């Protein structure tokens, strides 16, 4: 059977199934098995693409090349580890009485559907379907964010819904404009939203329309990425939702939104001269980075703080892609990978830490290393990794971004370094007392799942010291595709 169809079908079917039977004892295992199946299918698909080159599916509606297969495998992998993590996490939540059985069902069902929407968004060739899938991803996660039904989580979900809904409406307007421009070249054949067709004619698209279109797309999908000042939903949603959801939001959804921008940027670059799109992204990236860095020092809630850290890294990645060129794109892709892996690992550790201490307020979390060294070290190493300390891979990508910026955009380097320095001081100053010191934590009814944390960190560590050649080739190819 076709790997691609399997990869989309498994989460869709299991999502539907879990919505019905999600309260059973074996439901968490089904969740894991489904994620594993998705992951294996994604691996198979990756192998196929690497071996045979790009391919279509469902006519020309879906298209998989080395760029999006990279995102697909990353998404499927983090999806798998998150499902492993969420098993014990959700059990503990239920023991604490924060979640009822129907909610658990909702969680598992929506989780799989969310994976489906992301995978669909990543693999579609049709920019319209991309939009539909992005909107659907918002809808599924809104329910996940408000899972606890507390006033705070409702507020967060409401803001998430409205802001992202409005944002994504801008993206739709951008898509319409794009279609408008493409139609003039491609005619009304219905192919005018297919990326593979658009890429062939990108040079002849009308620049005025493309510029407007890209602005709308950037503002629209940028809201979803969390670019400042469109980011306001992000910390709320991350902090108030269940931790596995924070992990996938931060680790995956932001990537997918950025992926959407990247696809549009390739078209805009073809139509517009002088790196217009790139400059816009550089501007947004730097502003986001700087703003997020200064936000960090005022945080009290641990998940909120790491949400801002995600914004910061998204700014950095946007900046990298804005610079363009093979090296910066490579660095951007690498940084996306590292950020996804590291940030989800951090959220896993944070999730257990908050369960143990019963609070998300950092001033009340102390001495994690004492009550459970694995959680403590997981959080500590994850934080150091996300702050760009070698030998973790985040440093590798930051090094490449910085060096590239120094070469081509020297004026931006002080801003980058200032932001990174401020972020370091803010985050590390808060995490260190949480990990070290005397403890206030208690034992959990279910043993925490720390394997995903160290699995992620292990990969990040390995990639910091050694990037296997086939991965390099793959990244290079993907980076070349971005121009």
């Amino acid at each position: 059977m076709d790997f691609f169809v399997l990869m989309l079908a498994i989460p869709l079917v299991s999502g539907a199934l879990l919505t019905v039977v999600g309260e059973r004892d074996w439901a968490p295992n089904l969740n894991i098995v489904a994620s594993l199946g998705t992951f294996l299918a994604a691996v198979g698909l990756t192998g196929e693409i690497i071996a045979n080159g790009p391919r279509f599916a469902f006519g020309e509606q879906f298209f998989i090349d080395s760029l999006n297969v990279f995102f697909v495998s990353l998404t499927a992998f983090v999806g798998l580890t998150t499902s492993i993590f969420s098993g014990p996490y959700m059990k503990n939540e239920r023991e604490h009485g924060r979640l009822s059985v129907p909610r658990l069902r909702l969680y598992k069902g929506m989780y799989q559907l969310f994976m489906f929407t992301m995978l669909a968004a990543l693999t579609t060739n049709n920019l319209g379907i991309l939009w539909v899938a992005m909107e659907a991803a918002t809808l599924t996660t809104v329910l996940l964010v408000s899972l606890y039904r507390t006033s705070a989580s409702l507020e967060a979900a409401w803001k998430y819904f409205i802001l992202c809904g409005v944002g994504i409406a801008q993206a739709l307007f951008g898509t319409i404009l794009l279609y408008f421009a493409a139609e003039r070249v491609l005619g009304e054949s219905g192919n005018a939203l297919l990326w593979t067709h658009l890429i062939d004619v990108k040079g002849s698209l009308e620049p005025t329309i493309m510029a407007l279109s890209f602005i709308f797309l950037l503002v629209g999908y940028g809201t979803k990425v969390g670019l400042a000042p469109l980011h306001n939903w992000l910390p709320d949603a991350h902090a108030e939702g269940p931790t596995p959801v924070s992990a996938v939001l931060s680790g995956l959804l932001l990537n997918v939104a950025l992926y959407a921008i990247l696809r549009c940027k390739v078209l805009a670059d073809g139509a517009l001269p002088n790196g217009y799109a790139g400059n816009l992204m550089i501007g947004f990236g730097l502003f986001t980075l700087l703003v997020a860095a200064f936000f960090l020092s005022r945080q009290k809630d641990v998940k909120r703080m790491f949400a801002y850290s995600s914004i910061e890294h998204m700014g950095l990645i946007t900046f990298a892609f804005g610079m363009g060129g093979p090296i910066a794109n490579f660095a951007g892709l690498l940084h996306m990978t590292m950020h996804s892996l590291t940030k989800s690992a951090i959220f896993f550790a944070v999730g257990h830490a908050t369960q143990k201490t019963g609070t998300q307020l950092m001033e009340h979390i102390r001495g994690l290393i004492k009550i459970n060294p694995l959680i403590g070290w997981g959080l500590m190493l994850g934080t150091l990794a996300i702050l760009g300390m070698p030998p973790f891979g985040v440093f590798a990508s930051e090094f490449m971004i910085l060096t590239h910026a120094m070469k081509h955009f020297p004026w931006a380097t002080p801003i980058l370094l200032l932001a990174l320095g401020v972020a370091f001081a803010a985050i590390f100053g808060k995490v260190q007392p949480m990990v070290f010191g005397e403890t206030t934590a208690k034992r959990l009814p279910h043993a925490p799942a720390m394997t995903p944390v160290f699995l992620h960190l292990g990969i990040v560590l390995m990639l910091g010291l050694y990037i296997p050649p086939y991965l390099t080739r793959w990244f290079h190819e993907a980076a070349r595709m971005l121009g």
Partner: protein
Amino acid sequence: MTSSIPLSAQLINLFAAVILLLGFAMLAQRRMLSLINLFALQGFCLFLATLVAAVTTGQVHLFYSAGLTLALKVLLLPWILHRLVRQLKVKREVEALINIPTTMLVGIVLVMVAFNVALPISELSHTITRGTLGIALAVVMLAFLMMITRQKAISQVVGFLSMENGLFLAATSATYGMPMVVELGIALDVLVGVIILGVFFFQIRDQFDSLDIRHMEKLKDN
């Protein structure tokens, strides 16, 4: 110049103008039910505009679009909203952030901006209804303004839906519709979105005893 424009285009332009007018009306309207009715009316004009475009060009999927608009924007969504308003007992909008005359002035400025932005594009368009793109953008912006100024969750949602109307207008009138699969997807998303919102309203009212979004300002950093 004007005489050379065919009747169908004049009709579409007319409906587009009415949609814009309704956008202003919604901006000024405080009563919740009237707001929803205005929204339904706007959807109806959209339906008419799409229908005219469909008849003129003879494209089949525009007929589907028109049907979809009629079903969703004119009938289903207003009906759901009506039910919600009645069940949640939300009568009136509380005083807006900015008073209504000022809002209208800002709205007029926005319309000028939108026209200005859309002007270069309209000149490039070869469809008969190229002027509508500016109007569509203006409707989107007015809806945006409405979302900013309103204090009730429901009126924000109406604003959101009105924005979708603007987008639909752009899609159907200016470009003669997107590919069918996309339009279906969009419609599905809107529908699911409204249903989820409906569920949400009840949860919000249970939590906050009100649908006033001013209660939802707890999550902040300063």
